[in-house]
């Protein structure tokens, strides 16, 4: 076979033969990737044709044709890409000599260093959809004749278009399914710190997808024109990667990024810009292609979805459109309503909608740059079940940046370490998705965090904290938490978030690393650890919020970051700090000297935590009330908060006082959601109740507030019998018990009293019943902390009997009595 056969070659070689080395040299010199790819294809064309002539032509004078398919078919051979060859045969190859000729052909190519993937098919097989090998049909979209039996090839040429036309729906479906699952593998995001430039969303594969769908739909190939810049960028990058590693390597690692530009972070932003253009086009093409073929069931569902349409928006084919896009000019806040709609229904804005918004971005930015009361609208977006989708689409459409220019610094910002997988903006969005996923998690190790999450009553504040928790990273990595909190302060003031909420959000941002530090680098069995953390978080509520924040932050570092190991560490950190916060209530009291030093005789003897959890204004108000109470024996103050009321009572302690006050509130139909009770050294008590007014009694009859105050005063002074007050009220309708109540005692937690912790399903009057039960057992209630979360009452009482801790007998009988009350 050393002799050159005389068979007619389809191509004659005039110029001196190119070589891989030459092609590489030219590429290094010119940087022209398109030329390098085309040259390699031409070179491989020659090699394949020669191999055909030397090995196959004699044995198969006809009956075999050699076709380039896939990337080879497109004449797009990257330096180390596989070479896809289709051997088109008229019938199955039989006989030793023929088989031997075929393997000699392949061997020749392999020996020349080509990685050939070959398939042998008849025309019939090519024009048949094989569900286990749809890739073959796909590769035929790019077929190109190289050598052999031209007549045989012409047969295929005739039949193939008809086949593709008849099978285009299954092919489109398969392509889209394959792409979506590939995207899902990469979390549907282009923002990977070390992207695989072929497979990640926005990579080469997405360009191919656009190309194939264009052929199948018979439309202009957008992968060529509008995306040409992105294509050139990726092609050049891929050539460099292949040359650098010497094989088909498509991973854009940190090392490679470093070699690409003096400032890799800036250079990567260019990569993300191109990837985003490709990704968006790919997604649009899938939408269009699938729209082409949907069946009646899908149509029905979509019609049903289209009923979501309202006066501002219409929903068509699972996408939201503006009814009157012109309104954006006069009403920029229409975009916030759009994203509330997106967040409520989980339907993305249509591409047309995104385009309309992008035309108005500068107008939007100017509108949002001025301080306006936008917080209620933002809060409504974040309160919906699909808030993460809204934030993601806000980001994609540029609206997020127009609304919060503070995000500029973290856009496509790369964190260069081996732990983070995403850019900072993407990480931020993934934190919110992590919380949404947590809600439905079935994993038992995650369920307990899901329970905590269910107890958080103001998720929009947590989301807001997450949105800005890393914005400070743009200023360098040192202490970004403080920097982020400062940036957030400006944003929250601009959208006019109420001060109390803004303080909370800033607190969460500034302390978002507090728990991570402890769980990774502190001895959790050392009581000092929990004590230290408790001085940072102050309250159970803050602890819960920060725990959930930490859960989200760690989960969003990379998909595997939240290991069972870390889940356990985080949970232990939460539990030891929870115990510490509960214990401290009774054990750590404000010393008289401390109280006097602060000029506040009144607070001496209160838990130390009192000073940490109440603002100076609160304390002043309490001191004022205590002065008032010295005259009348009692002072009562009622204030209206957001959606709830808070009553503060200062009076001299007496048996059953707490129960009586709780009962009086219940007699007005009020539902107590939170309560605190402390006594100071002189026997003056400060009881605070936060309650809801489910019947809107106080709202509709402002006079009732005065009557409520008066009643509480009379009850506090023992002039009114609570039992009589309560007699008039009917018991609420019995509901099915959804949770088993639990009552636990802890005599170790405090030096002087026994801690009683009750968790039960909440109901009106529950607190009164529990407190009365304790009082009737001759227990004295020292400290109380009551919380209600999503139908669940979490009540902590520190009690003594005859000035001492409760005996075991006493605990047993109390437990039974308390459980009884919970089940009533």
């Amino acid at each position, binding site marked *: 076979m050393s002799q050159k056969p005389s068979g007619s070659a389809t191509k004659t070689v005039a110029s001196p033969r190119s070589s891989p080395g030459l092609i590489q040299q030219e590429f290094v010199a010119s940087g022209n990737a398109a030329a390098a790819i085309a040259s390699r294809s031409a070179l491989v064309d020659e090699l394949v044709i020669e191999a055909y002539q030397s090995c196959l032509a004699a044995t198969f004078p006809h009956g075999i044709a050699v076709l380039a398919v896939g990337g080879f078919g497109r004449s797009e051979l990257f330096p180390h890409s596989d070479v896809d060859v289709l051997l088109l045969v008229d019938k199955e190859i039989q006989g030793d000599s023929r088989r031997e000729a075929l393997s000699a052909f392949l061997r020749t190519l392999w020996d020349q260093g080509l990685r050939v993937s070959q398939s042998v098919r008849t025309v019939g097989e090519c024009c048949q959809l094989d569900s286990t090998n749809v890739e073959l049909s796909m590769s035929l979209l790019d077929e190109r004749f190289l050598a052999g039996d031209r007549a045989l090839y012409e047969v295929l040429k005739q039949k193939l278009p008809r086949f593709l036309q008849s099978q285009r729906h299954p092919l489109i479906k398969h392509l889209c399914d394959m792409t979506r699952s590939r995207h899902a593998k990469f979390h549907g995001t282009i923002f990977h710190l070390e992207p695989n430039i072929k497979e990640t969303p926005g990579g080469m594969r997405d360009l191919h997808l656009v190309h194939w769908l264009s052929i199948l739909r018979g439309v202009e190939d957008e992968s060529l024109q509008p995306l040409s810049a992105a294509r050139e960028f990726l092609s050049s990058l891929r050539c460099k990667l292949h040359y650098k590693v010497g094989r088909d390597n498509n991973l854009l690692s940190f090392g490679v990024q470093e070699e690409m530009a003096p400032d890799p972070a800036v250079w990567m932003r260019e990569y993300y810009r191109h990837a985003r253009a490709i990704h968006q086009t790919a997604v649009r093409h899938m939408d269009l292609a699938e729209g082409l073929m949907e069946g009646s069931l899908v149509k029905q569902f979509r019609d049903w979805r289209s009923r979501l349409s309202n006066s501002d928006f219409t929903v068509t084919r699972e996408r939201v459109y503006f009814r009157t896009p012109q309104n954006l000019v006069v009403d920029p806040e229409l975009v916030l309503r759009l994203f509330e709609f997106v967040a409520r229904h989980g339907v993305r804005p249509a591409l047309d909608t995104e385009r309309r918004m992008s035309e108005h971005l500068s107008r939007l930015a100017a509108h949002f740059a001025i301080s306006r009361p936008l917080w209620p609208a933002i809060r409504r977006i974040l309160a919906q079940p699909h808030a993460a989708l809204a934030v993601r689409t806000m980001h994609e459409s540029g609206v997020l940046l127009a609304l919060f220019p503070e995000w500029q610094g973290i856009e496509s910002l790369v964190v260069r370490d081996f732990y983070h997988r995403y850019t900072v903006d993407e990480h931020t969005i993934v934190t919110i998705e992590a919380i949404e996923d947590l809600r439905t998690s079935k994993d038992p190790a995650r369920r307990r965090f899901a329970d905590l999450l269910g107890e958080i009553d103001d998720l929009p504040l947590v989301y807001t904290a997450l949105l800005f928790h890393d914005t400070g990273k743009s200023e360098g990595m040192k202490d970004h938490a403080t920097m982020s909190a400062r940036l957030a302060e400006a944003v929250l003031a601009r959208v006019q978030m109420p001060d109390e909420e803004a303080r909370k959000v800033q607190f969460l941002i500034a302390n978002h690393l507090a728990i991570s530090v402890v769980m*990774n*680098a*502190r*001895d*959790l*069995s*050392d009581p000092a650890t929990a004590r230290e953390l408790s001085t940072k978080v102050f309250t159970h509520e803050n602890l819960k919020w920060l725990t959930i924040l930490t859960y989200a932050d760690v989960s969003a570092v990379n998909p595997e970051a939240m*290991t*069972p*190991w*870390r889940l*356990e*560490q985080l949970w*232990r950190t939460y*539990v030891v700090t*929870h115990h510490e916060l509960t214990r401290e209530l009774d054990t750590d009291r404000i010393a008289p000297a401390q109280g006097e030093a602060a000029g506040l005789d009144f607070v001496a003897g209160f838990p130390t935590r009192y000073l940490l959890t109440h603002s100076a204004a609160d304390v002043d108000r309490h001191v004022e009330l205590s002065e008032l109470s010295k005259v009348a024996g009692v002072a009562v103050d009622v204030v209206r908060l957001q959606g709830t009321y808070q009553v503060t009572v200062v009076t001299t302690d007496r048996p059953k006082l707490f129960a009586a006050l709780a009962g009086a509130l219940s007699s007005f139909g009020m539902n107590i959601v939170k309560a605190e009770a402390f006594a100071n050294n002189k026997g003056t008590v400060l009881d605070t109740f936060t309650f809801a007014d489910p019947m809107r009694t106080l709202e509709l009859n402002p006079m009732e507030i005065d009557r409520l105050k008066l009643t509480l005063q009379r009850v506090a002074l023992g002039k009114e019998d609570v039992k009589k007050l309560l007699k008039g009220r009917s018991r609420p309708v019995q509901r099915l018990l959804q949770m088993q109540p*639990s*009552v*636990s005692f*802890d005599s170790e937690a405090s030096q002087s009293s026994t801690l009683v*912790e*009750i*968790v039960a399903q909440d109901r009106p009057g529950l607190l009164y019943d529990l407190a009365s039960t304790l009082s009737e057992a001759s227990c004295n209630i020292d400290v109380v902390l009551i919380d209600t979360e999503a139908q669940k009452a*979490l009540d902590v009482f520190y009690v003594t009997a005859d000035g001492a801790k409760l005996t075991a007998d006493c605990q047993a009988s109390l437990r039974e009595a308390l459980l009884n009350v919970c089940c009533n």
Partner: protein
Amino acid sequence: MKKIEAIIQPFKLEEVKEALKSIGIDGMTITEVRGHGRQKGHKEVYRGQEYNVDLLPKVKIEMVIPVSREEEVIRTLSAAARTGNIGDGKIFTYDVAEAIRIRNEDRGESAL
């Protein structure tokens, strides 16, 4: 050559790494593991419900060193990892038959 395997408290990792570095030991493999020794976990109470903490998070450090340094490494490691409480962990040592650097097939201690 000896292989040293140590199970330590997670929060002691930095200290142990620093201590080993100070005596010139840089190469090690670190794994986040969960398990229990004789202490067999414990019960924790949260909101009145007991739950078992039977698998405690720990960190496993592995390294291979020349025999001559064994005692020194063990001493340094255990001093750095010790709190004096239950759960401080354990150190195991093994004989190593051979070490081969994959890049250039160096063998023995020069491959460490």
